[in-house]
């Protein structure tokens, strides 16, 4: 998916983790295009996000957080989103993003 080899530490980390994230989400490895959405790189905070698109699966947001390192909190936050996403009563007027 990445057209050029990333040069920043954040970009490289996102590049390196990408195939594992796809595997976990049971999505195809090839066929993706992407654009950069946001990037923040401070002493204590570093994260990057991309808008990624697959012709058969649609649009997603891919995000990697390099700092802070808080894997338990990261997992808990994601599981909360997963649970809320399952229970949230979606209508034509109300929606919530879905974790993959």
């Amino acid at each position: 998916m990445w057209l050029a080899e990333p040069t920043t530490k954040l970009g490289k980390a996102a590049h390196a983790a990408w195939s594992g994230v796809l595997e976990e989400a049971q999505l195809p490895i090839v066929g993706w295009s992407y654009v950069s959405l946001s990037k923040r790189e401070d002493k204590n905070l570093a994260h990057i996000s991309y808008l990624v698109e697959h012709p058969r699966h649609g649009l997603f947001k891919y995000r990697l957080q390099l700092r802070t390192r808080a894997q338990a909190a990261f997992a808990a936050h994601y599981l909360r989103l997963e649970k809320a996403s399952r229970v949230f009563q979606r209508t034509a007027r109300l929606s919530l993003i879905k974790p993959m």
Partner: protein
Amino acid sequence: MDIANQANLTTYAKGLPFSEFMRDATDDHTRQLELLQHAGEWLDAYHRTKVSETRIFQPKHAVSYYHDLSEKIQAGDLKIAAKPLILHGVERLSELTTKYSDQQAVSAVQYGDFHMRNLIFDGTCLTGINISRNQAAPVGHDIARLLLNYTAILRGSKEL
């Protein structure tokens, strides 16, 4: 999700930040109210994903804290900007306390940073994109976060 690398993939919400629609309606308070009610509907649906308990609303400790602050401000021990506005706010808080104390409040899972840029709107559908808390709190916390964000950005102090 990849916990080790703190990476995840979520669906993408098409649209613009809710704040853009609110800003476009700056001179149309009726439209702003409709939009805020829509955000309220969204928050209600989110809170219902995990309602934890009902509680009796007892704001006496918080109110007491603001009274102490008020006294320090009036005595000149604490310097602040917008002094009359803050003092008027504390007075108003006392009035509201009498009205709402001891009523039933509902606790639910908190959204956290529920401000206008954490909702995406496409003109019809409102989508929440950035849950930041995973704990129960009175639903008023999220409501207050949104309304404070709205008043701070889109309303002048004279309108409060």
